[in-house]
Every structure is written in structure tokens, then in C-alpha cells.
């Protein structure tokens, strides 16, 4: 009798995958390193470079991208079977744009200063290739829950690079982190200067280049020939 109940309770498990099975966990962890959207897939670079002068806007931007990519992945995945393939790009763009408008209005209402700093880049989340790329490559062919995890994972992978770059730039460029002074006044008196070149946009590219260099020398299988 007891054997029967266990086998009966085990049966639905085998047909329905556990929420955090190893396969689903991989969806979450893979984009952090082996399949990072910025350094490996080359997606979503435009916004990554422009908002990373200070840490605060880049954290807000990262959160916005995580929210948009997770939920647009879910929505597209739910309706993936009824989208006509010829016009799928317009359908995808419309859904992403609706999500971005929600996020934009939310930012304007609660963190107005940051939303002013981000200016057009919140709008440009629509054409952020991470979101479109994941919609095309993953959500169009997978169930809602894995798509949700994939969206969160890629959003976090994007956010990690954003935070690293902005940390380097804010620390070296203005001696602060999150607006708090890190490098003490006494060092400035000894003749230390903020590196104003690092605030310039081109340095963000070079920092990302160096991050790629470091990542690939630790992770040999990513090296291009």
C-alpha cells in the first residue's frame, strides 16, 4: 500500500519537471560566465557603455533590463504558438515596448533623478539586442517557466558587467562609489588627481575589452581562433 502511494506521488514528478532542476539552474547560471550576453554573445552593448559612468544609474538600468527581459520572455513564450512567423518581429517589439513604457513610467514616478540621467537609454531597452535576441533564440521555442529563468539569468549576466564597469569608472574617475567618497581628502592633498579620461565614453569600451581579456584567459574554451 505504501509502495503504491509513493509510486503514485512520484509519477507526476517524472512528467512535470521540478522548478529548480539542474537543467533550469543552468539556464540561470550559464549567462553569468560561459554564455554572458555582453562578453560572449555580443548583445546589448550600446546601453552597457553609455550608462556606466556612475554606479547608481547602472544598477537601475540593470534592474530595468532584468524586469523587461524576464516578463517579455514569459509573455512571448505564452503566445509563441499563435504568432504568425512573418510579422513576429513587430509583435515582439510591441510587447517589449509596452513593458518598457511601464518601466519608464515607474522610474519617472519613483526615481526621477536617475531616470533623467538615463535619458533616452530607457527607451533604447526596446532595441536592446539582449531582449530581442533571447526572445528569438529562447522564448519562441520554450515553455514560460524556463523562459522566465532565461530572461532573469541574461538580465543578471548583463547587470554584472554593467556594475563592474561602472565601479571601475566611478572609483577611478571621481573617487566615489554610489556617491560616497572612497578616496580620502588627504590623498588628494598629496597630489592625487581623478582620472578624467576614464569618465569619457571611449574608456568604457576599453574596460569591457580588458574584462573580456581577463575572462577568456581564465576560461580557455571561449578563446576565438
Amino acid at each position, binding site marked *: 500500500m505504501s509502495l503504491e502511494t509513493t509510486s503514485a506521488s512520484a509519477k507526476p514528478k517524472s512528467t512535470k519537471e521540478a522548478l529548480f532542476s539542474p537543467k533550469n539552474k543552468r539556464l540561470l547560471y550559464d549567462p553569468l560566465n560561459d554564455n554572458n550576453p555582453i*562578453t560572449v554573445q*555580443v*548583445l*546589448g*552593448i*550600446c*546601453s552597457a*557603455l*553609455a550608462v556606466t559612468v556612475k554606479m547608481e544609474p547602472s544598477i537601475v538600468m540593470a534592474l530595468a533590463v532584468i524586469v523587461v527581459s524576464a516578463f517579455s520572455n514569459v509573455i512571448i513564450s505564452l503566445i509563441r504558438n499563435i504568432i504568425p512567423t512573418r510579422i513576429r*518581429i*513587430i509583435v515582439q*517589439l*510591441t510587447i517589449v*515596448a*509596452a513593458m*518598457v*513604457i511601464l518601466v*519608464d*513610467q515607474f522610474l519617472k514616478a519613483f526615481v526621477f533623478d536617475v531616470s533623467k540621467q538615463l*535619458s*533616452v537609454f530607457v*527607451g*533604447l531597452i*526596446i*532595441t*536592446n*539586442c539582449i531582449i*530581442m535576441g533571447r526572445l528569438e533564440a529562447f522564448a519562441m521555442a520554450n515553455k514560460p517557466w524556463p523562459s522566465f529563468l532565461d530572461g532573469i539569468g541574461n538580465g543578471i549576466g548583463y547587470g554584472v558587467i554593467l556594475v563592474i564597469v561602472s565601479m571601475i569608472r566611478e572609483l577611478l574617475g571621481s573617487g566615489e562609489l554610489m556617491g560616497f567618497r572612497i578616496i580620502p581628502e588627504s590623498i588628494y592633498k598629496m597630489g592625487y588627481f581623478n582620472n578624467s579620461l576614464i569618465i*569619457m*565614453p*571611449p*574608456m*568604457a*569600451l*576599453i574596460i*569591457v*575589452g*580588458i574584462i*573580456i*581579456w*581577463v*575572462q*577568456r*584567459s581564465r576560461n580557455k574554451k571561449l*578563446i*576565438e*581562433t
Partner: protein
Amino acid sequence: MEHINIFIKAIFIENMIFAYFLGMCSYLAISKTVKSAIGLGLAVIFVLTVSVPACYLLEKYVLKAGALRWLSSDFEAIDLSFLSFIMFIATIASIVQLVEMIVEKYAPALYTSLGIFLPLIAVNCSILGGALFMQEREYATLGEATVFGLGSGVGWCLAIVALSAIREKLRYSNIPGPLRGLGITFILTGLMAIAFMSFMGISL
């Protein structure tokens, strides 16, 4: 005169790639050979020149605060500018689709050489970026908006052709393994952007 200023400014001083990093993804992905770079560059010029004025008209007669005045005075108080993202992207996506159909019909040779790039332009950030900058800077006439679109397209094309030429030469140089491919391309683009910074501060 004003038009020439906007044109030159959009190409060199406010270059889409080197000043704002817009359209970076396809810029890095499709700059392996000069030939495909030129193809994509021309397509971007074309789409920008058509879609920026289209978005300008949309902005002026539908979206801006009080823009619906031409319908009737009842609509004077309506401000639809919060809808601009979704309207602009829909306009751009449909223009790209339209361009694709026209090119396919009348210039099949060009169509096959552009291949996958044409539909990809819909998600090229520089197009939506151009439309949003046009909205932010409030150009006075349709002519100015068109010239701005053309100029940013030419600037983008210039940047991708230059990078692809350098990358073709780079194949013969000895780069450290982990830096090969993507890494060195990033650093190269950074150096090119520093070079373009020398145009900054020129007032026209």
C-alpha cells in the same frame, strides 16, 4: 546653412557610434569584411533617412502636447508623448518591412547581397536612437530632421567601414590568444572613439 551644420555635426561631432555607442551590436558583429560592412552601412543610411522624418511628422502632428490641434480644438489638452516609444518602434519596424519588400521587388541583386541585415536593422539601436534624439532636440523643420537622419546614417556607415578595414588588416597580426576576436575589437573601437573625440568642442 543650418542644414549643412546639422549634417556635419551628425557625422563627426555627434557620431552615432563614437559618441553615443548606438547600433554597437551589429557594428561589432558585421564588421569582419569591408564588403558586408558597406552593404549594412548603406542600408542603415537609407532607413535612417526615411524613418527619422516619418517619426518627426508623427511627433509633430500626433504625439506632442497639443499636437492634435489640427483635428479640432477639443483635443488641444491631449499629450500623447508617453506613447512615443511604442509609436516610433512600430513606425520603424514597418518602414523596415516596407523597404525590404521594395528592395526585393525592384533590386533583387541588392536584396540578396544585404541578406539578413535588412530585417536586423529594425532592432539596430541607432535607428530608434536617431528618432529619440530628434524628439529630444526638437528640430524646427522637416528638412532639418531629414538632414539629421541622413547625417547620422553616413556617420554610422563611415564608422563601420573604417573598423572593418582595420579588422581585415588585423588578421595578419599576432594578438594574445584571449584578446583575439571580440576583445581587440572593443579596444580598437575605444581608440577610434578617442580619435573622434578630437572633433568635440568644434562649434558650427
